């Protein structure tokens, strides 16, 4: 018997398989069959039970059940964890840069062996940089080893990633900073969401959407119009369902700077970071008034899309569609306790699709969602 978590979602059932950390949405009948399989009920009994539920020949039911077993077995396989070789990861003696950051009354020292490492991390936290300090709370070391990126924390090995996995290295470093900033271990976080979080002092709305849809731009616009920037790109939620602030800068594409300049004149002189692969240039906008004491409940999920042809359009999104967009883009803590919290959290939210080109109207809609006026 494995660990399954089953919840109702609209007229269907969502089943989480612990061993494979996968979420499957079934018709209730299939979920019930899976539950019986998981409880070790003999096939013959399940077949009899099914015959009463579905009016089709027994052979077809047998074939169907055989296939349900296959789905169960496939998703019940224990995922092999990637082995991490700790050996041969001695830190270099020379670094291209050593930076110090002051975050939530803690001093972080980060050593970068190459410019590549520096550019991966520093622009996100440059606004928190301080002069070098003889004493610090945490020391991170980033260097190359066998053409991979290695991360140490207080000289302890954290991980090693190929260069093509650099965004996972950034995610792991971001997660460790989060753990340090809030003194809250990884197991106490329900998940980290690829979203922008905006707050009104009482609650938060998560702005979601594929890369390039305008999440960060929307966040910057909302931040300029009196809403709080809680987090951009990396939104942490604890297992009490509280959204916390994350201090990384908002990544702004050069192409939208013109739109934001009236609100952020400082963008005119900000450093531009070009990268050829994506054929774009970005600047980093420090969030205003980061408050590490804030803990906000989530009011709604808003899937956003900037579209020059649409002035403003707001529609509701079904739970299943919202979940389908949310899960593949999120890290959800894979423990049964946190998955139960996640599903409970998700199923009680409101979900919207917001397409816009009119910034003022977009701000008004977000305000209306906060005020229950939609």
């Amino acid at each position, binding site marked *: 018997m494995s660990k399954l978590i089953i919840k109702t979602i609209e007229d269907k059932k969502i089943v989480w398989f612990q061993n494979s950390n996968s*979420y499957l949405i079934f018709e209730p009948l299939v979920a019930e069959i899976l539950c019986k399989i998981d409880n070790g009920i003999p096939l013959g009994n399940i077949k009899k039970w099914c015959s009463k539920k579905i009016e089709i020949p027994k052979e077809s039911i047998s074939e169907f059940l055989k296939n349900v077993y296959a*789905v169960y077995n496939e998703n019940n396989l224990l995922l092999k964890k990637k082995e991490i070789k700790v050996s041969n990861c001695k830190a270099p003696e020379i670094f291209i840069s050593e930076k110090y950051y002051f975050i939530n009354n803690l001093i972080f020292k980060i050593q970068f062996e190459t410019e590549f490492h520096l550019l991966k991390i520093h622009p996100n936290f440059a606004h928190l940089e301080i002069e070098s300090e003889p004493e610090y709370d945490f020391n991170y070391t980033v260097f190359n080893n066998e053409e991979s990126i290695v991360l140490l924390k207080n000289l302890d090995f954290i991980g090693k990633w190929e260069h093509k996995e650099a*965004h996972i290295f950034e995610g792991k470093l971001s997660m460790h900073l989060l753990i340090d900033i809030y003194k809250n271990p990884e197991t106490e976080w329900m998940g980290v969401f690829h979203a922008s979080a905006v707050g009104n002092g009482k609650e938060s709305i998560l702005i979601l959407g594929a890369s390039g849809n305008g999440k960060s731009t929307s966040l910057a616009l909302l931040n300029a119009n009196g809403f709080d920037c809680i987090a951009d790109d990396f939104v942490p939620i604890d297992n009490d369902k509280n959204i916390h602030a994350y201090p990384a800068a908002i990544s702004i594409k050069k192409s939208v700077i013109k739109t934001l300049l009236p609100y952020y004149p400082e963008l005119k002189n900000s450093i531009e970071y070009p990268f050829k692969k994506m054929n774009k240039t970005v600047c980093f906008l420090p969030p205003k008034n980061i408050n590490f004491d804030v803990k906000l409940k989530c009011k709604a999920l808003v899937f956003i899309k900037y579209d020059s042809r649409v002035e403003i359009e707001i529609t509701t999104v079904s739970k299943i569609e919202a979940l389908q967009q949310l*899960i*593949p883009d999120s*890290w959800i803590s894979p423990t049964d306790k946190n998955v139960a919290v996640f599903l409970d959290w998700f199923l009680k939210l409101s979900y919207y699709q917001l397409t816009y080109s009119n910034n003022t109207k977009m701000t008004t809609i977000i305000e209306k969602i906060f005020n229950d006026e939609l």
Partner: protein
Amino acid sequence: MKKKKKNTSENITRKEAIKKIGDYGKYSALTAIGTYLLLHPKTAQARSPANPGDGGGF
């Protein structure tokens, strides 16, 4: 039962996530009952892939 496993992190479409528990020809009721969605969360925390330094742009 043939199916493709999808574990992509971005832009998974409804069509890509839809799976079938077998194919039952004339028993469309079974095909309908056996249709399901398969979703995988990210296996590790990640930042957006597009950040400075990618592709040696400097």
